[in-house]
């Protein structure tokens, strides 16, 4: 059945509507998880708050498992899932720039908009920086065009590189993610700060 848009189950316009609703939902979840706090995001680098790691890796393993199960039951054709192509140098360069911006500003692009939505001024400045960056990148594109397009690898999958099935790779990812969460929670205790309180509640059943 899926992907809905490729198989013409929904129209292009309905697709945009779904994207809008999902986007709002994404922003809401970010804000609800405290991602609009730059201290929480920066905490990832100092080790006193690993929520960023936990939320994003949970999303990754839930998404991976969900897609594979939907495919298993014939509800989605994975051949039609868009996989962002890899330009190795761009990916590394972009990663470095974003990482520096992340630790300096305390936001990543998505969370900065989330924070602007609740009225944070530092986030507004950060968004201003994003637009300056976009302007410089676009205007100066001929200067770094070669670097930008270098080392094109197509859309490789880790499972293919490792020569395993997607299922086995996902199991490995799940185990690695849970291991990282465990380490991250140890780190949260080890690097805890007196002026910062983790607002994570214990789930009670």
């Amino acid at each position, binding site marked *: 059945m899926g992907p809905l848009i490729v198989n013409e189950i929904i129209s292009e316009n309905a697709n945009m509507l779904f994207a809008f609703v999902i986007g709002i939902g994404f922003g809401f979840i970010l804000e609800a998880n405290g991602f609009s706090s730059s201290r929480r995001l920066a905490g990832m680098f100092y080790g006193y708050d690993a929520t960023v790691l936990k939320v994003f890796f949970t999303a990754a393993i839930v998404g991976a498992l969900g897609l594979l199960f939907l495919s298993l039951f014939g509800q989605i054709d994975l051949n039609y899932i868009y996989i962002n192509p890899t330009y190795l140098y761009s990916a590394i360069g972009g990663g470095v720039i974003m990482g520096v911006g992340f630790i300096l500003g305390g936001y990543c692009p998505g969370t900065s908009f989330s924070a602007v939505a609740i009225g944070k001024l530092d986030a507004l400045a950060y968004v201003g920086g994003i637009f300056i960056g976009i302007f410089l990148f676009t205007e100066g594109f001929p200067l770094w065009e070669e670097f930008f397009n270098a080392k094109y690898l197509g859309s490789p999958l880790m499972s293919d590189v490792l020569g395993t099935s997607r299922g086995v790779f996902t199991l490995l990812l799940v185990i690695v993610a*849970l291991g990282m969460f465990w380490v991250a929670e140890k780190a949260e205790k080890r690097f805890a700060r007196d002026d910062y309180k983790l607002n994570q509640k214990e*789930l009670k059943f």
Partner: protein
Amino acid sequence: MKALTILATIVIPLGLIIAAVPENTTKQYKLTAEELLEEVKSGTQFMYPDDVADMIIQKDPTLQLIDVRSADEYEKFNLPNSINIPLVDVLNEEWEEYIDQEVKLNVFYSNGTNDANQAWMITRQLGYENNYVLQGGVNYWAETIMNPEAPKTGSPNEEIIKYNLRKGAGMALGGAAIETQTTTKAAGPKPPIAKRKKKKSVQGGC
């Protein structure tokens, strides 16, 4: 209970299941409506009777003729070495290995081209390869291969060659040409077929 423990109890079993089951490789919707329309417009699904006749005579093992008419019609007349898969049964699992395969060249035929085209569209939509339609169907086959119309005197050379080839093919395949000509020209059938072989390479290029 800690959130991490809860998460682990959910995702580890799911991960184990997904690692153990075989990957789903079924192709679901291989062609979009636009892509199918493009193929229909360009008519790539058609095989010409002359080419099919040639393959039959050469006993080409890759050719698989599939009669999509009813069993009755198939009993009355069918092309050599054809099998009968009535259009209504085309999705029957029994026939799946015949129509979803990568070795043979399947040619659907019906009286006209309608039913064969429908069979082709269904299989194409499923993403199956190597399925074709006999251009003109049995009716056109009877006209061109079994009872070729003699070209008028003074026709271009190609017309005459084509006629000879068709006549030879018709004779080899037991068409009407044999009945009318065996008495007068017993040795008739052979030369045209030999000639045809040469011509084939050129035809292929077109």
